[in-house]
Each structure stands twice: as structure tokens, then as C-alpha cells.
């Protein structure tokens, strides 16, 4: 075990841990914007109660997201300093801008969102919620910009092995950014509304907090009905993007070894890929379907893995199965949405116990799909850090393996500890349920500032 291998494991462990939290932060912040908007608009107390309840989950989640995210920024330097110094001119401004534009926005307005109820007018509070949501999406934009640049680099030229920037926006808005950004933010929305729906289903099954659970679930399911099909569309677009720009990755995802010449490439449904033997030990395949999926024609050519040198191939087994897991989840959720639509037509959405149980069971699947998606895209980028330009082995820091062994061991103790505590306090918060009795926040005005309330409801003005 050398520093390179251990650093890769450590980065994988810390990112896979971290991404769970931003996924919920991004989606839940948008959900909270919707709920607070409804409260200001309809002036029904229940929406305020919903906000206060879901924001508790949001706050716990945000804290773990912040602390686990700082780790990653450090690891670029501690574990991959050669990479950092080689690509910094193009890559690092994105991280600097993330801090500048997104993190400050989130940190500055989160406190108003959590603690500002009695201190700012309702309109300012709503603005704070919107800005936190905007900040979290902006953060995703910069990070996906940076990660997409590693997948499909643009806006640079190589001078003596160093990346020099030639166009900032060309680098940020690199070819795979639009589809990967859409895919990830939709994943975050989908994951989060599923959590809301699952928790609400649990309350309905228990017959607790029924009013809050019904409304929470309605909003969540409406949003999910939009995001779930949309995600399948973005997933497909993402797959074709990979086909055009990272053909070795696509071939590995599909366990596709031989380039098809005069007929369509088969779609391998299940297989046991054998990387040494360059074949599948066992497979069930449907003729022509892979060509259809990625080229939208029955006999389009799809390059097989054998076309790429052995040293340039990613791990087929991991990619094949991670990808299939993600896709399967996408379609399971689609079926659940169809069921929801049928029940909604019959007016039995909140009474059908098998459906509520299903929602409860499937609600963590969004997280799993997000993890599998990141495993697919990152393992698929191997053996490169910057696709086809800089190898992972060329990026590691000049440090002894012992350093990384020490920190990795600590992460393997600390992260599960934090994760379990997080889970415990989330469950406790859910168990305690919403607070339905505390007084509503007073309507406040800032001196010299017309609040949104007074614009909407002149009767309430002082």
C-alpha cells in the first residue's frame, strides 16, 4: 500500500461521505423556499410549522456538510499536491470562487434562516431562505465545473507539462458541465423530496402529525413527479455525453469489449466482467440495444474496450454494477411515481398503506443512486485525473504512505462516529415531531425598509 493508493481510498471515503449532505442541503433548501413562499402567500399557519420542522433537519444536515466539505479542500493539497500544482492555473479559481460566492452566501444567511425569526421582517427572512438555496446551487455549480473540467478539460494549453489558462469561462463551462450539473442538481432535488415524502409516509402510517405530513407529502410528491422523469432524461443525456467524450468509460460501464462493425452493439443487462480475459464470463445481452441507446440508431458503432490500451482502462466490474444500480433506482422511483399518480386520481394517496410503506422503504434510494452515480463518473475517469492528459499516479503528494495511513485510519473512526450521531439526532428530531404550539414570529419592520409583507398585505401594516 503506497501513498497513492491510500490517498485515493481516503479521497473516495471522504467524498462519498460528504456528498450525502450537500445532496440533502441543495434539495431541502429549495423545498423550504417553496414552503415559506406558500406561508407568505396563503398565510396558513401550517406552512410556518412545516418550515420550522424541516429546517431543523436542514440545520443538522448543513453542519455535517460544512465540516466534511472542508476536508476535501484540504485534501487537494495534502494528498494530491502534484495535481494541484500542475492544474492550479485553470482548476483552482473555481474553488476560490466557490468560497467567495457560495459559502459566504450560505453561511451569512443561514443564521438569519435559523435564528432570525424574531429579528428580521418576514420578507427578509424569505430572502435569506432564497439566498441560502441559491448559494447551495451555486456551490454545486463551481464544484461540478471543476469536476467536469477534469472529465472534459477545456480553456487551457499545456506548457512544459503545466496547464495554463486560455479562457476562464471556456474552462468553467466545459463540454460536460451543462448535462452533469443538471444531472446532479436534479439528483439532489429528487433525493430530498423523497426524504420528505418518506418521513411524511411514516407519520401517516403512525397516524401522527397528519395535517403536516399530508401537506409536506403533497408538495414533495408534486416536486418528485417533476424530477423523477426529468432525471431519467438527464441520465440518458449524460450517458451519450460520456459516449462522445469518454468512450473508454462508456465501454467499461457497458462491459462492451469488441467494437461492433456491421451490426448493432448488444446491450448487456447483467454480466460478470473479466478484465484479465477481456470478456464477460457470463452475460445476458439484448442485441442492438446499446447502439440504439447511445447513438439512437440500431447499428451505430460503439467502440469496445479492447480498442484502448490495458493501462488506460477503468475498472469494468465496479462501473458496470454501479451504473446498473443507479439506473435501476431511477426506474423503481418512476414506477412509484406512476403509482402515486394513480392513487392521486382515485383520491387515496394518503390512505393506501402499501403505498405509504413503499414510500418509506424507497426514500433512502436517492442517496444510494447519488453515491453510485459518483462512483460511476469518478471510477470511470480512471486512470486519469485530467481525462487523457494527467494520470492519477502523477498527481499524488510527495509524502510517505505512513502519513496517509494515519489520517485514513482516523477518518475511518471519525466519519462513522459523526455519521451515526447525525443519524441518531435526525431520528430523534423526527420522533419529537413538529412544534405546533409556540407563538408565531411577530411581524416586524426594518426602519426605512418596506418589507415584502407590507407590499402583499397592507391591512397588516402598522
Amino acid at each position, binding site marked *: 500500500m503506497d501513498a497513492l493508493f491510500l490517498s485515493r481510498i481516503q479521497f473516495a471515503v471522504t467524498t462519498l461521505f460528504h456528498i450525502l449532505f450537500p445532496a440533502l442541503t441543495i434539495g431541502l433548501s429549495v423545498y423550504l423556499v417553496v414552503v415559506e413562499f406558500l406561508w407568505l402567500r396563503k398565510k396558513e399557519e401550517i406552512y410556518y410549522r412545516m418550515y420550522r420542522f424541516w429546517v431543523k433537519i436542514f440545520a443538522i444536515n448543513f453542519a455535517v456538510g460544512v465540516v466534511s466539505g472542508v476536508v476535501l479542500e484540504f485534501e487537494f493539497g495534502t494528498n494530491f499536491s502534484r495535481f494541484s500544482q500542475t492544474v492550479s492555473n485553470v482548476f483552482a479559481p473555481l474553488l476560490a470562487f466557490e468560497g467567495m460566492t457560495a459559502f459566504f452566501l450560505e453561511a451569512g444567511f443561514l*443564521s438569519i434562516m435559523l435564528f432570525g425569526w424574531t429579528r428580521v421582517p418576514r420578507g427578509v427572512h424569505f430572502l435569506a431562505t432564497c439566498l441560502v438555496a441559491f448559494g447551495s446551487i451555486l456551490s454545486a455549480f463551481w464544484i461540478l465545473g471543476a469536476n467536469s473540467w477534469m472529465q472534459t478539460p477545456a480553456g487551457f494549453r499545456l506548457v512544459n507539462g503545466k496547464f495554463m489558462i486560455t479562457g476562464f469561462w471556456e474552462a468553467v463551462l466545459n463540454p460536460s458541465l451543462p448535462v452533469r450539473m443538471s444531472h446532479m442538481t436534479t439528483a439532489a432535488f429528487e433525493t430530498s423530496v423523497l426524504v420528505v415524502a418518506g418521513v411524511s409516509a411514516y407519520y401517516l402510517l403512525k397516524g401522527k402529525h397528519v395535517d403536516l405530513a399530508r401537506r409536506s407529502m403533497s408538495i414533495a410528491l408534486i416536486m418528485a413527479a417533476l424530477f423523477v422523469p426529468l432525471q431519467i432524461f438527464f441520465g440518458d443525456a449524460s450517458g451519450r455525453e460520456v459516449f462522445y467524450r469518454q468512450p473508454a468509460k462508456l465501454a467499461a460501464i457497458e462491459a462492451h469489449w469488441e467494437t461492433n462493425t456491421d451490426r448493432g452493439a448488444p446491450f448487456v443487462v447483467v454480466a460478470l466482467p473479466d478484465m484479465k480475459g477481456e470478456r464477460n464470463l457470463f452475460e445476458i445481452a439484448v442485441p442492438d440495444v446499446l447502439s440504439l441507446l447511445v447513438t439512437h440508431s440500431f447499428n451505430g458503432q460503439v467502440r469496445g474496450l479492447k480498442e484502448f490500451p490495458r493501462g488506460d482502462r477503468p475498472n469494468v466490474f465496479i462501473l458496470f454494477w454501479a451504473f446498473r444500480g443507479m439506473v435501476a433506482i431511477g426506474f423503481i422511483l418512476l414506477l412509484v411515481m406512476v403509482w402515486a399518480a394513480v392513487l392521486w386520481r382515485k383520491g387515496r394517496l394518503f390512505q393506501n398503506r402499501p403505498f405509504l410503506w413503499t414510500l418509506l422503504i424507497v426514500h433512502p434510494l436517492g442517496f444510494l443512486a447519488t453515491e453510485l452515480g459518483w462512483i460511476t463518473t469518478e471510477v470511470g475517469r480512471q486512470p486519469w485525473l485530467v481525462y487523457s492528459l494527467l494520470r492519477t499516479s502523477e498527481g499524488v503528494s510527495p509524502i510517505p504512505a505512513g502519513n496517509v495511513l494515519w489520517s485514513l485510519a482516523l477518518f475511518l473512526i471519525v466519519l462513522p462516529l459523526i455519521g451515526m450521531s447525525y443519524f441518531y439526532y435526525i431520528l430523534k428530531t423526527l420522533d419529537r415531531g413538529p412544534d405546533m404550539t409556540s407563538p408565531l414570529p411577530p411581524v416586524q419592520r426594518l426602519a426605512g425598509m418596506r418589507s415584502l409583507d407590507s407590499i402583499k398585505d397592507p391591512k397588516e401594516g402598522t
Partner: protein
Amino acid sequence: MDLVTLWASLVALVIILYVVLDGFSLGIALLFRTAENEEERDLLMNSIAPVWDANQTWLVFGGGALFAVFPMVYGVFFSALYIPLLTFVFGLIFRGVAFEFRVNAVRKGIWNKAFFWGSLVAVVAQGLTLGGVISGTKVSEGQFAGDPLDWLNPFTVTLSLALLAGYILLGSTYLIIKTTGAVQQRAYRQAFRSGWVVLGFQIIVTIWTPLHYPSVWANWFSSPRIYFIWTFPILGLVAFYALLKTLKRRREVWPFLCSVGFFLAGYLGLASSLYPYAIPPNITFQEAAAQRETMLITLWGAMIVLPMVLAYVIYSYSIFRGKVGNEGYHA
């Protein structure tokens, strides 16, 4: 001023902003053990709950900016100081989650400990990092070329003790602003004592630095530093004197400002002793700088965004100004 010097000053500004802002947050955590009961601990925590995350963000931004404009500094130091820097991160993890977990816990003991020990570890690791930077780093072909424990020496350990005292001073003087009654009275005493300890450390470090790091001595007594380097110890002494006076007169805001001045004196003294070296003892900021275009792009971004950031961070502070009650922000 050329681009590199401008960015070096900006990075220096971000670092001192971080040191002062997260310094008082960490300092209050270091005083956590002196709180006598759960209500007082609530009070201490509530005094920083709305601001700690924004305070810590200066670190994240500073790290990102360093990566973008002085990539060699970022790469070399983060490899060389692997152990103190990741220790720092582990400390921050426990300190950060304690804010949210403690509020939700019935038995708060475990998160009280996580908050205190996490912060203590973070501060000690910060001191070791700073000491490691000053002690000098082996570089070859733009990469770290030393051993993993090169940063560890008596000077480094002394600096981390000094930083502990310094953050306690910042924390206690900030508590004076935010609290009343028994907690405030105790904060006055804590500020008074830690002030003297910090003075002691400032004197030790000022004498020790040129001995530990010989070129500093030559730097001090040659042009142009000889003309201004002596102003920093004087600024420090003036700030210290004003700190004692304002503490005795039970002023509320001045002691904090004096502690900041005291910190600033030490920081500026150190920074101007090391300049123009970004990675002591040999690599200058010019040598460690990024491509010109990258520095320009990030500079433009910073010029547009940072004033807005400052404006709303100050706005956020102003919303939570005044004495903190122990009603608990989460309730």
C-alpha cells in the same frame, strides 16, 4: 503595486480576518470548561452560534485563494504540514458538529467535550502549522522534499501555546461584549490574565524568532525594515496598555478592539519579518505565484464579490448584535 504583491497583501488580509474572527469563536470554546453550569454553556455557545460558520468560511476562502494564486505555497505547505493540517481539520469537525448536535442532545456532556476538545486540538494544530511555516521547508523542483515531522520543534510547540493564550484573550474580550453579570465579570478576569500571558509569549517569540531563523535578524537591521520594524512592538505595547486600562474601567467593546490590535502587532511584525518569502527560507511570492491571467481573473472576482460579502456579513452580524440571552436560538 504589482499583481503578486497585491495578492500577497490580500491573502495576508484574509488570513488575519480568519485569525481574528475564528480566533474569538475558538477562544470562547477554550473557555467552555470555565462555565459553571449548562445555562452558562448555552450562553457561551449562543454568543457565537449565528456567526461561527461565516467566520470559518474565511479559512475556506483563504485556502481556495492560496491554491489559485500561490499554488506552490498551497501544494508545498499542505504536503509538508500534512499532519498538523489534517489534525486541525479533525478538530474542526468535532467543533462544528457540536453546535447542532448539542442543541438536540438531552445529555449534552459528550458534545460539550467534543466542542472543547475539538477546538483545543484545532488551535494547537494551527499553532504547529504556523510554527512549521516559519521554521522553513525543504523544497526541490517546486515540490516538498522534506520529512513528515520536519515541523516539530520546541519553537513550534511554544507558538501553539502562545496561540492558545491569544485566542483565549480574543474569546474572553468578545464575551465581554456579548454577556452580562457573572459570566461577563469572569470574562473580564480571564481577559486580564490571558492578556499578561500573551504579552509574555509575544516577548518570547519576538526574541526567539531571529535566533530560530537567522535571516530574520539580518532582515530587521537592514534597510528598509530598520525604518519601520520597531513600530510593531510599540504598537503591541500600546495595545496591551490600552487593553489593561479599558479592562479596569470595565469598558465593553474596547478590550476586544485592543486585543485585535495586540494580535495585529504580532502578525504584522511576523509577516514583515518573513516577507518576501512565501515559503521560508528560500521561495519568494514571485517564484510561487500562479500564471498572470489566473491572478487577474481571481482578482477581478474578488474585487466584485468581496465587498458584497463584507456588506452582508456585517449586516448578518448587526442582526445578532447586542447581549445574548440564554433563551437559545433554536427554541
